């Protein structure tokens, strides 16, 4: 029997085992699918969050709020000083009235608050657009708080860094949880395969008796685990896509959409998820065979 014939035999025996014990097999497939689904959600969230942070980073601004009593000359000197810094592309001055208009546009539901003010309550500000080289800017920002005429500085990079740290922590937790869940899936599959080997122990003994090698005796059980793992990963992939598609149709805040629903997995990531399920199944199929039990060994 060549390798292809042997694989065909293993597959037919494995599918027969799965059909005969479909309830317990379904449980193992569901465990694998759930593990991979949770892992997939974390992967998707991690990917999209990283992508969103990168995109937000490119739009990030540094805003320097100035005292309203600063003269135009003083503001011009400050602007010039900023433009001379390496890494600064543009400096835009936003006056109090312009700031009030922006606020109205961005938060129309809060526009009524502004009616209570005769004059714009917003300070003059300088919006700095950086090109990524932050060394000189950071140095300038470090000393700016003591400078007369500067009331505050709002640097987007600060909260993006915090968000980045959160995303990294989430990825690490995701990896850990994913690893634990995959371990659980492999153990679940191993239990089902172990049960199969127990149910068919007389057949296994009969096969050995007539001279079947361990390759032929164990092969169907390894394939049984593999099929369960792959079925679980296909199910997880389908559920992930459905969840992604379903959530995409809901009206969710822009930052949730950006951070979680930016894009689905790449084909390579989807294949990796399938491979992960297959590997868990393979490991689950091999575990009982490595044990020196009454059936094997």
């Amino acid at each position, binding site marked *: *029997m*060549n390798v292809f*014939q*042997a694989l065909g*035999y293993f597959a037919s025996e494995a599918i*027969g085992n799965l059909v*005969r014990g479909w309830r317990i097999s379904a449980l193992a497939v569901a465990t694998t699918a759930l593990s991979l689904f949770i892992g997939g959600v974390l992967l998707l969230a991690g990917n999209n969050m990283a992508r969103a942070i990168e995109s937000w980073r490119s739009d990030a601004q540094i805003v320097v709020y100035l005292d309203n009593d600063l003269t135009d000359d003083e503001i011009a000197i400050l602007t010039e000083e900023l433009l001379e810094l390496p890494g600064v592309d543009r400096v835009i001055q936003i006056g109090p009235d312009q700031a009030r208009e922006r606020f109205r546009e961005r938060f129309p539901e809060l526009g009524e608050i502004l009616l209570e003010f005769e004059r714009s309550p917003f300070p003059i500000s300088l919006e700095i657009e950086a090109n990524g080289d932050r060394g000189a800017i950071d140095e300038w920002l470090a000393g700016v708080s003591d400078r007369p005429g500067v009331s505050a500085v709002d640097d987007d990079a600060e909260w993006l860094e915090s968000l980045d740290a959160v995303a990294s922590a989430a990825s690490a937790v995701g990896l850990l949880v994913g690893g634990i869940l995959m371990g659980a899936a492999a153990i679940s599959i191993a239990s089902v395969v172990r049960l199969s080997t127990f149910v068919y122990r*007389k*057949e296994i*003994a*009969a*096969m*050995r*008796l*007539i*001279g*079947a*090698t*361990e390759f*032929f005796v164990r092969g169907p059980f390894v394939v049984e685990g593999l099929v369960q793992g792959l079925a679980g990963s296909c199910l997880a992939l389908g559920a992930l896509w459905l969840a992604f598609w379903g959530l995409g149709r809901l009206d969710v805040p822009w930052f949730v959409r950006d951070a979680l629903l930016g894009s689905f997995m790449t084909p390579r990531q989807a294949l990796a998820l399938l491979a992960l399920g297959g590997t868990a199944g393979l490991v689950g199929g091999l575990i009982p065979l490595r044990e020196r039990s009454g059936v094997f060994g």
Partner: protein
Amino acid sequence: MIEFFNVSKIYPVNRVALADVTVRIERGQFVVLAGSSGAGKSTFLRLIYRAAVPTAGQIVVNGRNLGSLPSKKVPYLRRTMGVVFQDFSLIERKTVWDNVTFLPKILGVDAKTRRRLAERTLERVGLQRHLDSYPAQLSGGEQQRVAIARALISKPDLVLADEPTGNLDPHLSRGIMHLFSEIHRQGTTILLASHDPELRREFGERLLVLDEGRLVADEELGRRTLSTAGAGLE
């Protein structure tokens, strides 16, 4: 063909199954192993197909020392012999055909040759009309014939049978023994464990008697032929 040199087998808790047995079985003999329950008959056979290893001594089968046989080679040893058990040891969820052709199938024998081998073997045991039956649909005697067909399909030189009639009534037992006799007549060495004195006397050619693991008798019984053995197959 089979040689035991001072073979002992002691199971855990010091249960002696075989004690210092030395014996030689020639090719083509029909040897019956006799003895009460626990005398060591099954252990004697298990050592030959390497389901157990001796605690002491050497066993040589067809010139091959089983003591130096690696575990991975055991399946290849078993393919050179047919083994038949009291409980038939058939694969319950496979048909007669699948049970009998399993070994040729995994050995990669093509379907046409497999069919020829199986048809010939099943005809030999009188089961050519039960190819699609499952073991549970057959009588005990028929199931044992399937087991014998499975043991014979690879044309082994040696057939080991451990109480093959133990689960059968006297009529079916005689049918099975006739079958072994016929197989032996065609040149196959038979080593059969039986506790039935009548069957032993009627069909055996040589009798080995075990008692508490010791070989206490080795007698020539004289060749029996089908013509003198009585009724035909079931």
